[in-house]
């Protein structure tokens, strides 16, 4: 009896960590698979021909790979234009965000200005303002000053997404740089602005880069504002063009839509794979401070 219990106990002790480990791996796989399966389906759909799709012959394993859909979106649907629009607007937003947020964050972190708490509070609050509520008033203003269907209009509007986050992030980062650094520069006769330009910005370059990456992703990903302010095909952004691809035709060609989706996903997927650590630290400093 005692032997049997001992045996059972041994087996329990022996197997339990292994079972736990197997369960742990299984859970991990489940998460990774659910994150990636839709991407896989999109990839396989995008390399199938329209005929195959029409025949309802879609399969987990594509019969043969064709780039038909990719050629079509560029030759027939002129997908290059919206891609270019998106790239210009996202880069413009990133640049404008950094130009506005870097000096402002330095002042908020360092220069002891009055109303600092109020400004930071407003910035935090602005990050939570409903985007949809900005659509109407901005539309009316843009209509009056001819910013509908323009790059500038969207770049300015995208600051709603990027500026609060960038200021919040950079203010936190600048606060962590030792004060002695800019002070020693200023003892040597440099002005505040010179210290910011020559000392602080080079030191904070990785953080500024992080803020830039996140700004780019947010601008690249927008749909709501582009849908509201861009109503001519020539000024569509890539996400807008994709949705239009699905609605403009009598029949929906999923291979073309998914080819466009692959093309739009590539830049952000690359950014995430290369800068995963930075993005995560950027998102969490913003959230937990």
């Amino acid at each position, binding site marked *: 009896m005692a032997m049997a219990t001992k045996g059972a106990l041994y087996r329990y002790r022996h197997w339990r960590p292994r079972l736990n480990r197997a369960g*742990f791996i299984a*859970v*991990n796989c489940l*998460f990774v698979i659910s*994150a*990636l399966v*839709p*991407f896989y*389906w999109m990839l396989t*759909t995008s390399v199938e021909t329209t005929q195959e*799709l029409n025949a*309802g012959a*879609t399969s987990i394993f594509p019969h043969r790979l064709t780039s038909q859909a990719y050629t079509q979106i560029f030759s027939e649907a002129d997908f290059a234009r919206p891609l270019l629009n998106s790239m210009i607007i996202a880069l413009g937003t990133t640049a404008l965000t950094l130009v506005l947020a870097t*000096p*402002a964050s330095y*002042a908020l972190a*360092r*220069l*002891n*200005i*009055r109303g600092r708490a109020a400004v930071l509070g*407003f910035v935090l609050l*602005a990050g*939570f*303002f*409903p*985007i*949809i*509520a*900005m659509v*109407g*008033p*901005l*539309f009316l203003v843009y209509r009056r000053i001819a910013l509908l269907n323009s790059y500038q209009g969207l770049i300015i*509007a995208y600051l*709603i997404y990027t*500026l609060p986050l960038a*200021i919040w992030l950079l203010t936190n980062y600048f606060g962590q740089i030792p*004060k002695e650094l800019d002070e020693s520069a200023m003892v040597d006769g440099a002005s*505040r602005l010179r210290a910011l330009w020559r000392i602080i910005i080079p030191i904070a370059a990785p953080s500024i880069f992080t803020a830039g990456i996140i700004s780019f*992703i947010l601008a*690249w990903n927008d749909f709501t504002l582009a849908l*509201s302010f861009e109503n001519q095909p020539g000024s569509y952004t890539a*996400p807008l063009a*994709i*949705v239009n691809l699905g609605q403009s035709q009598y029949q*929906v060609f*999923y291979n073309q*839509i*998914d080819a466009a*989706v692959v093309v739009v*996903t590539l830049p*952000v997927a690359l950014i*995430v794979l290369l800068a*995963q650590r930075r*993005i*995560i630290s950027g*998102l*969490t400093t913003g*959230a937990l401070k």
Partner: protein
Amino acid sequence: MPADSRQPGHAAIATADDRGRPGTSARGLAGARRTRRSSGARRRADRSVGYLLVAPAVIALLAITGFPLVYNLWNSFHTVQLADPGAGHGFSGITNYKELFDEPGFSADLGHTLLFTVVSVTFEIVVGLALAVVLNKKFKGRGIVRAAILIPWAVPTVVSAMLWKTMVDPQDGLVNYVLRTLHLPGAGVTWSANAWASWAVVIAADAWKTIPLVAIILLAGLQIIPSDVYEAAEVDGAGSWRTFWKITLPLLKPALMVALIFRTLGAFLVFDVIYILTGGGPGSSTETLGYLNWKAFIVNSDFGYGGAISVALVVLSLIIAFAYTRLLKPST
């Protein structure tokens, strides 16, 4: 030069100084002292540089967020209908707000929005927490898992919505493929014709995209819990389940609150995923307040009624945020 320029005493002196000598005299004095680099002059110079550096960003933010809110408030008490110029632009009192309560759209959409918010936020927080707990363990390949789950966060909503639209397409979708291959009922069914199925797809697409962010916020919360509390729990013989409920969850409360506020407001204001996946349909069964507001602005060009919806959205968002901060208070 004082070691810490934020010493309260110095700040107080500088403030009194600034108040006492307004205008040109203060600037002249600061200029004269600048050669000696006295801390008072430096601080005043710093301040004026500071305002200059902050001003562009603050003005830009006010112009694109503060001003539209005020403009909405104004519009909501006026007739602003672009499609009907004959209606004029007069003061309309509370007509627009009355419309919120009189027309069935607003109350029905409020119901849809609350349903979507409660279901999707609960689902996202539970799965996000599980994911965060898994990612908090050290194991080989953790970087790959983290990158894999971060990609859904980084892709455009259009991508996540289109992926799920492809997945559930009655002809070309993975769901249909699996059902067909396994000879299960439901193959070839047009899910978008059914209100509940449409909701399920919307929630799946939204959760798939937002769970990574929830997990990352919660993971950061988990990582700042000191390991000695876990060691103490182990010494006391607490099982892992008990440790999770009694130690991890309470210590995770601040991060949980951040994730909850983020996601609740995000879900409450949902628009793009609905527009792309269902267009509010079938009928108007998946129409949310965000969708109704967008329709009022862009489709119907009624900026008075739209303004009233926006004001309602802002007020309801504030109530949600306030409720959460009250929830957070007692324990901290």
